[in-house]
């Protein structure tokens, strides 16, 4: 337990170690700590901002969705209306067309009937004439009978 030069040696080495620590140990580690602290706080605030943005976006999405829904409803109702219109129009057109066709058909039928009547008239008159000729050939004077037939033909 002698006090000697060790005291001074220890003081010198203490000074050297403190100087070294101040120069090469303390600054890099504390700066790393500070930087990490900053990074963490930045990250936290960024996360908070992100959260806020997310909430905003959610609200926006909700409003957009409801807008879209109402628009879709509009479109559907418009389409329904349009469908009704188209159907009505088609109905009207179809009715017109059918009536037109009906008229045409009627006319055709009438014409056909006329033609038939005509041809029938002709045929019948022919037949009558032939029949009468056959009868008359046998017994009746041609002139008298011709007069009678003429009368008949005019009657028909």
């Amino acid at each position: 337990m002698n006090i000697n030069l060790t005291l001074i040696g220890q003081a010198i080495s203490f000074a050297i170690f403190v100087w070294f620590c101040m120069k090469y140990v303390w600054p890099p580690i504390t700066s790393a700590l500070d930087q990490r602290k900053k990074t963490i706080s930045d990250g936290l605030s960024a996360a908070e901002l992100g959260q806020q943005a997310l909430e905003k976006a959610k609200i926006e999405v909700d409003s957009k969705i409801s807008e879209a829904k109402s628009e879709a409803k509009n479109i559907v109702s418009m389409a329904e209306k349009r469908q009704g219109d188209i159907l009505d129009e088609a109905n009207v057109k179809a009715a017109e067309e059918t009536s037109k066709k009906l008229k045409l058909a009627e006319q055709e039928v009438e014409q056909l009937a006329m033609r038939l009547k005509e041809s029938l008239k002709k045929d019948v008159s022919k037949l009558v004439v032939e029949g009468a000729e056959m009868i008359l050939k046998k017994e009746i004077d041609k002139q008298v009978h011709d007069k009678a037939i003429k009368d008949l033909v005019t009657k028909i």
Partner: protein
Amino acid sequence: MAAGAQTGSEYIKHHLTNWTFGKDPSDGVWKIAETAQQAQEMGFYAIHLDSMGWSVALGFIFILLFSFVGKKATTGVPGGLQNSIEIIIEFIDTNVKDTFSHTNKLIAPMALTAFVWVLLMNLMDLVPVDFIPQIATFIGVNFYDMDPHHVYFKIVPTTDPNVTMGMSLSVFFLALFYSVKNKGVGGFVGELTLHPFTSKNFLIKLILIPINLFLEGVSLLAKPISHGLRLFGNLYAGEMIFILIALLPLYAQWTLSVPWAIFHILVIVLQAFIFMVLMVVYMNMAHDTGDH
């Protein structure tokens, strides 16, 4: 106990003697002291090679480890080593910020150095008392032809008052320097002479100056002494008890040395911490101006 022919008291005395290199007063030659008596006679012109060697080696371990971590320090996720170093740094940093209310870039690194270095030096106390000294004796006897009784080797630097006082006196002189720097010579002298007793009467004030100077002087000088001797005393006592336990028969030693070592872990950390905190407190006092 591996003392051989030594008696108990010789064993203890041998363990409490440093490996001393100094100037022999009888012939003025610098040499290694062969006996405790000779080491005593060398007086101030001697150096404890074991204390110095271990303290410098441990200081280098501290510096190399911490600067290694500092060089590779990442701001991202720290690894295990960096994490533990950072815990120590932050512990010191909060302590310094709590006690030291001024700005001085020196204080925190100094506190860190003192804490870790003293902690490492104290930790040497947990190495079994005979372990390294026996190796030293073996080397001394076999390679240097020394008398085994003349190989002195103490491995705990903080059980050497030179080491603890060397640090506490450094702090003391640094505190004096900062006191004068921050308060001026007048302010510092005023602090020493005009308190604690003061008077409005100029004559009484003059009479009170020596009393104040005595009181303040004692408290000023008591600081570094108590600062250094507190650390020394605690570790010396701990070392002493380990040595006493080592005198027991081999089979019985663990019953005492294990509990004492476990308790001593607390002492080691606590004393390093106290040493660091007192250092910061003294430095803070040296920076305090305007309170008086």
